[in-house]
């Protein structure tokens, strides 16, 4: 009656398919990223013996568990229109705190919460600086990056090995899967974190507000959403995730070292963006970030399996694979991202 009625579904099947795709437009980038990842993997399997084994695929998760957790945290921040450069350093700091406190004889069950708390606290402080004082996220978290890394150095410039039996047990713990394969505890935790994040983002008010703030901060404010809480919240989540990544990293590597996770913040951001999340905020999925991490992991695996590349060709090929991935993604999903 108002002339606003949507056009009646066109008769032709083609139109119906288009309508179907249309309605799910926002999933296209993620779907395409997943597809390209599968392609990449398929090429690897054809090329290298031993590549297509189930355990190799699972190892992608095992080897990148901490990066998945990092990327999950960064997803929150990027969705809210911010950026977090401190994650790599916070990961190192968390690992460092674990190693240091264990060496000091703290009980492991106390050490882990302390490390997580420290990460969340750094994230919280960054969030406060960004929200209350209007400091640009890039700078605030760059400062946080220096700060966390600096704290690592202050704790110790030397590597601290972890000999705690509980950490050892956790590190060795394997969740058996059919076909003689298994996942490490870290990988399971990472998947759980991703699942929890997806739940929070899609099924809670906080999560939806994250998208809203990313879509338009001033609108979100005028819509009566708690913008401040959301902004501080996402950085806290990111800090927490980085610290959790650090704990997983200690399981993986059994030591704290002030040089751990150098440049990992960029890997995390790249993974998120590769997964189809827009850096301008408000658009993307946790699943995409996981796909992004697996993509980076697959590229790394291909490089390892190649086995003949010199150091510089390794880098060039890594860049080229990234390019191929992105171009394929672009070609397969035209006109989805404005």
């Amino acid at each position, binding site marked *: *009656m*108002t*002339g*606003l*009625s*949507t*056009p009646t579904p066109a008769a032709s099947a083609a139109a119906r398919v288009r309508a179907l795709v249309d*309605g799910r*437009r*926002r999933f296209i980038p993620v779907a395409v990223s997943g597809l390209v990842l599968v392609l990449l993997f398929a090429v690897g399997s054809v090329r290298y013996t031993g590549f297509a084994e189930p355990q190799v695929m699972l190892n992608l998760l095992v080897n990148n568990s901490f990066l998945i957790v990092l990327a999950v945290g960064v997803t929150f921040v990027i969705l809210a229109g911010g950026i977090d450069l401190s994650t790599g350093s916070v990961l190192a700091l968390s690992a460092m705190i674990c190693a240091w406190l264990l060496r000091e004889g703290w009980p492991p069950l106390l050490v882990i919460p302390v490390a997580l708390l420290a990460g969340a606290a750094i994230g919280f402080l960054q969030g406060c600086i960004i929200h209350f004082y209007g400091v640009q996220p890039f700078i605030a978290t760059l400062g946080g990056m220096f700060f966390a890394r600096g704290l690592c150095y202050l704790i110790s410039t030397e590597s601290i090995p972890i000999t705690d039996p509980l950490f050892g047990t956790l590190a060795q713990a394997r969740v058996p899967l059919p076909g003689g394969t298994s996942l490490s505890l870290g990988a399971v935790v990472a998947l759980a974190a991703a699942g929890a994040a997806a*739940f929070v983002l*899609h*099924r*809670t*008010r906080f999560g*939806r*507000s994250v*998208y*809203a703030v*990313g*879509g*338009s901060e*001033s*609108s*979100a*404010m*005028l*819509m*009566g*959403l*708690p913008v401040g809480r959301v902004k501080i919240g996402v950085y806290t989540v990111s800090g927490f995730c980085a610290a959790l990544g650090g704990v997983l990293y200690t399981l993986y590597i059994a030591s704290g070292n002030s040089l751990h996770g150098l440049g990992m913040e960029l890997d995390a951001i790249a993974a998120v963006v590769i997964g189809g999340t827009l850096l301008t905020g*408000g*658009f993307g999925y946790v699943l995409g970030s996981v796909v992004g991490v697996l993509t980076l992991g697959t590229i790394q695996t291909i490089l390892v399996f190649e086995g003949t590349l010199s150091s510089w060709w390794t880098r060039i090929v890594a860049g080229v694979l990234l390019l191929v991935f992105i171009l394929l993604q672009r070609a397969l999903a035209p006109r989805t991202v404005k």
Partner: protein
Amino acid sequence: METAAGPAVQMSGIVKDFPGVRALDGAGLHLEPGEVHALLGENGAGKSTLIKVLTGVHRPDAGSIEVGGRPVAVDGPQDAERHGIATVYQEVNLCPNLSVAENVLLGREPRGRFGISPRRMNRRAAELASGMGLDLDVTRALGEYPIAVQQLVAILRAVDLDARVLVLDEPTSSLDRDEVRILFGLVERLRSRGVAILFVTHFLDQVYELCGRMTVLRNGRPVGTFTTDELDQRGLVGLMLGEQAGELDRVEGRAHEGAPPPDEPPLLHARGLGREGGVAPYDLDVAPGQIVGLAGLLGSGRTEAVRLLFGADRPDSGSLEVDGRLVSLRTPRAPIAAGLAYCSEDRKAEGLVADLSVADNLLLAMQAARGWMRPMPRKARAELVERYISALRVRTASPDTPVGALSGGNQQKVLLGRWLIMRPRLLILDEPTRGIDVGAKAEVQRLVAAEAEEGTAVLFVSSELEEVLRLSHRVVVLRDRRVVSALDNDGGLDVDGVLAEIAEGGAR
């Protein structure tokens, strides 16, 4: 809802300073439960600012606010909602990346066992929409809808808040008469439930139809509060505009006299221009000095049609000739070079660069046409800016003020000025009078008519049929994204005639 004793809202002595301007200077407001109250004033008078002070977006420099008889310090929109104040702001302030349903229900989503239930949310939003006579796919992203629909969604959101006070800042600027009817019905229902409604608009007819009392602001100062019975339209305009009111008389009635110019070869000659999923291929001729109005309902494709002409969207069929010469429509650059100008309907997203100054925004198109190598000489620049600011009566602290700090109507004037400065041969105006006050609207209409008189061809899109009829020599009617007919406006045409054409034209 508690039965509040005393006024729903009482603001008095509000002062608000922005750098360089005192936006409010002792302004006040008295809202009773169960009344529809108009807030009036010319562009930049301080209406939106007063509203933002009420909802806590701006903190007043002085003055007091009482809600439901109790003094309050409103601390932001969230707090305002807690005090029972729901607001639709002037610019659409929603999240384009979220679905329509979410925009309506964000912050109070229905929850199921596993957190928010999208199913229930969509159902609820669809109910609300259809309750307002809207048939929308609520799962689609809001950004996919044109601005008018977005405005309706904003209203839906506010209405659903179930508030004691509903503030509507120019809710009807993008709507056509059917939507306005629905909105009015809704407002009436709320009013009878005892909700106090504050209504800002530049359509005075709507004020007299809907409101009981009105408060007039001028230059941030209160002029007074009147009932609609004690003050007629003319008197109201006089109060709003002050000494300039006399000018209004000149644009009452038809903007131009006499018949359209004699049949010249068309300046603009479009054949089969169309775009898949946009507007069906159409033909259009516009002669120099001719004003062609585009009429149609919301979403009928007017905007899409004119965007093709300008290369704002790339057409996938058809051709455009200007003066017999083929114009490439890959980007707007060739059409601009051929003398076309396009004033977009969405000034926030497609028109102005909010961070740049008024002067820079005014001169942007001209500078782009001159190329980067030839910056405008400082003096010529200042002169032009000065001329157009005063010609369009842009209220700004200085030409260097960022355009984003201007009131909505003044922003619209700047956008219009950008293209008038170009002295185009064909001016495409998409809703150019959206949100500008009565005085300025008359001014714009006069300007358009004057331009046409001097030989500029004009394509005029407006949701206000009266305006279209008053200005154009010819009216092109669109429906369901196709051109259905073209009518000569030679005296025999009236609003009802066009409405009939919109409703059933092309059915032949």
